[in-house]
């Protein structure tokens, strides 16, 4: 199992994502100007401020050569995880529905958040199930840090993604600090192989420094899915 972690000018969480991925498999960085994804089985689009967040967060990264390859990889069913700025990039690239807008409180906010696992039958949350290794979880405690994290889609789209099970994670009551509609913290594509979330699972892979190890479940899930063990 090999993860490819993109690195854009302005990325800042790619090294943590690499370290998190290496806890469950092999992982390598992919520079934004490279079209070659290096035979990766799954891609992580990391957090940070790609291209300085110019224009809108993620708007310019979307057109990078590496992202063109990621779009083709996703179209072929490859697993793609977008974290924070990576989520913004995937929305801008229309690989995920909706958009991320400035936090309702207009502040950059950094805090640990509790997330409700709405669907554990996904390639990104299946390690939360009771029939996979490790303890089952219906909640994840993961840090979030961003100023553009308010999930928005029009009502019709929101109804549709709820109906099709694309809303994978919600902020637990009292934890939706950014004003996301319907408390949505993480969504997947209709086909289920692309997933984005604003909180940072890669920062919560070790209880010593991450407040919890819950974030590892996302990477473990991807490994289980790639290996065909579940989903």
């Amino acid at each position, binding site marked *: 199992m090999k993860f490819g972690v993109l690195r854009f000018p302005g990325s800042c969480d790619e090294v943590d994502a690499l370290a998190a991925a290496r806890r469950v498999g092999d992982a390598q960085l992919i520079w934004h100007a490279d079209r070659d994804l290096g035979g990766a089985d799954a891609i992580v689009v990391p957090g940070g401020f790609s291209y300085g967040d110019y*224009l809108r967060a993620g*708007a*310019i990264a979307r057109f990078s050569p590496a992202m063109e390859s990621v779009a083709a990889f996703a179209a072929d069913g490859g697993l793609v995880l977008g974290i924070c700025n990576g989520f913004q990039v995937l929305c801008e690239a229309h690989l995920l529905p909706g958009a991320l*807008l400035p936090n*309702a409180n*207009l502040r950059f906010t950094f805090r640990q958040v509790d997330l409700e696992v709405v669907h554990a039958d996904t390639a990104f949350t299946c390690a939360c199930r009771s029939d996979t290794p490790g303890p089952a979880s219906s909640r994840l405690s993961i840090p979030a840090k961003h100023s553009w994290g*308010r999930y*928005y889609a029009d009502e019709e789209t929101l109804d549709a993604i709820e109906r099709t099970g694309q809303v994978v994670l919600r902020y637990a009551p009292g934890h939706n600090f950014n004003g996301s509609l319907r408390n949505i913290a993480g969504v997947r594509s209709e086909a289920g192989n692309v997933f984005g979330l604003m909180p940072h699972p890669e920062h919560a892979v070790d209880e010593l420094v991450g407040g919890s190890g819950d974030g590892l479940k996302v990477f473990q899930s991807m490994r289980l899915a790639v290996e065909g063990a579940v989903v």
Partner: protein
Amino acid sequence: MLIRPKAGILDPQGEAVQRALPALGFEGVSDVRIGRLVELEVHDPDRLDAMCEKLLANPLVEDYEVQLLDGGGG
């Protein structure tokens, strides 16, 4: 191009400015929406809409308006 948040989408920046104005004595402002202005010099104005759709605006959350001005000798 004038790019602004779509009607109905919360604009917290506009709301913050709206709250600040009365404190400075500017009463009677009932709505503030903040967008951005992009100035371009182009030879082919027919492509401006496509530029907005593809990059300059996010049509999911923003409306845009193209205003053509006579160039300064360009």
